[in-house]
């Protein structure tokens, strides 16, 4: 385990052992619910979640990577640990996911800054060790760049679909890929989010603490906002809505229906990662195969052929069409809802 300084715990609070930290500082959870001086920290924690749920990054009291004053450091850590307690008490997975993502983004900024730090070698070394410890990615400094073995690079980069992440568009030499600090951190973004959320999910849920009821209830009602599936933004045609419903119920959608849904969402600019979870409830779900198939449809793997969404006519013959008046005069679900002249 990494030895953490005050500074580091504030920047990367998910690395700390929560229970141990509280004990070291001489606090119990109960005190936070009752002590009027400490109660503001619960509010701060609630605020931290609220900001994350909104898709924003929590703006901390850290200035640059230094705390504005000595007292700010523990407050940073406490608010993070209390946020986890609140989340666990609310039991809302959607909020946990959003919180983890926002915290990952926040940590990402610090990691990047630490990697690029030329005046303080120890900060850089710490960031390098975090990346190695957590994600088993060994990076080394070489001139102005960080280098990582091609095989490690590929394991992460295959989840990206922008062409600049393709190995061919990278500086490769002697088995190593050259990255900037920003790219290095970007490469592990997804894993950082997963790491933080699994840490929260695996944390023990304490019994309800007096004084915590109100923020917890607020969280529960807040999470209702996100209960509907996030991909259903914008008005989708009935065929697509129907397909999503079937999948959400965990029923079996025929291959033709999956093909329609995937090609439709891809053409609406959704990424393979955004679409894949839709199929999670399917009775025959297999993550690896689903990703493989989606990448195939998106034209990002192998053949490079890009598949487009079938026509309404074709979908009618496959019993996937549930036309409504708004479907008049369109020939493909893609055109649904667009103004026609």
């Amino acid at each position, binding site marked *: 385990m990494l030895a953490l300084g005050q500074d580091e715990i504030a920047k990367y609070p998910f690395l700390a052992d929560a229970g141990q930290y509280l004990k070291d500082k001489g606090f119990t959870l109960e005190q936070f619910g009752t002590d009027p001086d400490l109660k503001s920290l619960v509010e701060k924690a609630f605020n931290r979640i609220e900001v994350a749920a909104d898709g924003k990054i929590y703006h901390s009291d850290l200035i640059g990577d230094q705390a504005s004053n000595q007292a700010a450091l523990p407050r940073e850590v406490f608010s993070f640990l209390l946020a986890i307690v609140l989340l666990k008490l609310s039991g809302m997975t959607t909020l946990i996911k959003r919180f983890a993502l926002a915290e990952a983004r926040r940590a990402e900024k610090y990691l990047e800054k630490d990697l690029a730090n030329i005046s303080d070698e120890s900060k850089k070394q710490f960031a390098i060790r975090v990346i190695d410890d957590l994600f088993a990615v060994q990076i080394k400094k070489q001139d102005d760049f960080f280098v990582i*073995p*091609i*095989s490690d690079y*590929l*394991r992460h*980069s*295959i989840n990206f679909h922008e*062409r*600049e992440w*393709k*190995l*061919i*568009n*990278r*500086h*490769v*030499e*002697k*088995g*190593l890929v050259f990255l900037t600090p920003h790219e290095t951190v970007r490469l592990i973004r997804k894993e950082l989010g997963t790491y933080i959320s699994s840490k929260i999910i695996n944390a023990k849920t304490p019994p309800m603490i007096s004084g915590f009821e109100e923020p917890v209830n607020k969280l529960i009602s807040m999470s209702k906002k996100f209960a509907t599936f996030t991909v259903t933004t914008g008005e989708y045609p009935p065929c697509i809505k129907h397909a999503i419903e079937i999948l959400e119920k965990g029923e079996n959608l025929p291959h033709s229906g999956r093909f329609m849904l995937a090609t439709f969402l891809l053409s609406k600019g959704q990424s393979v990662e955004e679409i894949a979870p839709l199929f999670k409830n399917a009775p025959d779900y297999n993550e690896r195969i689903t*990703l*493989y198939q989606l*990448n195939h449809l998106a034209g990002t*793997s*192998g053949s*490079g052929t890009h598949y487009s969404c079938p026509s309404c006519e074709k979908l009618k013959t496959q019993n996937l069409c549930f036309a409504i008046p708004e479907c008049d005069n369109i020939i493909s679900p893609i055109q649904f809802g667009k103004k026609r002249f």
Partner: protein
Amino acid sequence: MQENDIKFLEDSFKKYYFEHFDLIHVPNRTSEREFGFQKFNSGMTRHISIKDDKELHLLLMKNIPSDVYCSNACYSFPDLPMSEKDWKEADLIFDIDAKDLNLECRKNHTISKCNECNEISTNAINCSKCNSIKLEKKSLPCKNCIDASKNEVSKLSKILTEDLDVQQNDIHVYFSGNEGFHVYVYNSQFQQLGSRERSELTDYIMFNGAIPETFGMKKFKPNRSLFPDFEEKGWRGRFSKEVYGSKSKRSKIISELITNGYSSFQKTLEDISGKIGAKIDPNVTMDIHRIFRLPGSLNSKSGLTKIFCNDFTKFDPYTEASFLSENSIEVTANCPVEFKLKNRKFGPYFNEKVSIPTYTAVYMICKKLATIS
């Protein structure tokens, strides 16, 4: 295939296997590999596990297979069905085949056999006798085919050693036994990579998916100093050598590239991909559960041996991979194209009875261009 043809092939294959145990060995980590074989005129038997050379030789003598295969992957349980094998890792393998290289010479030595009336001709589109378009193509690869394939192998080894840090002695090149080469890479950092990662590697090796920005070209306000130098390593260096031609032309060509614009640059990248990328079969490299022809075994498409190329530059498959007997045999040959085996010219034969060495008879019968009289 007729019964006496099969009997003849089996006898010849059996004799080869019996006399050449020295050429046929199990690979390292034997007990973790999946083996498979095929007999003449019958299906594939897979999911076999073998423990040593002795067991392998016994299998060959007992079954007289037309083709023998072995996985590049290592499994905990190679003899269980695929989903239960427990994949551990796999050697990196590349397949380079003359038929994928779009060579000019191909049309001169590709024979069409009509599926309807069995007519044999060099007509590529339809049967010259009954006009049917159901043609089976048989190629008798020429020296040019082999040289072109070798050139691709050389490009591949360069990329492997320079960019991917593979050691030269960990690259083993085998003649496939028909029209190309199998390149095996051992002890690399890629052993444990899955199929999607390997697919990215193939794009790298084939120079697929490159974007202009990688080579210094930007959509707006391109900057000359971002273009690659002649001496650079990796793809930027190979790009320079191909596109600038020489160091002295660099400046002039960069001006041209900038004038022609971004989309023309993208087109240039696609055009040179065929020249500077190595033409491997990406599906073979991506497949981490495949079984490959076992080195030392015979290829039933030709009767030639899949053999390790000791001195690759000098290697001539049509002398060095032919191990069958010289004994004369009479066959009816219908092979309108001339070919060379063991430095001897054969054919063309126009539906005629000829007495030829066994290795030539096997070669033609395997390609369905002759039958035992």
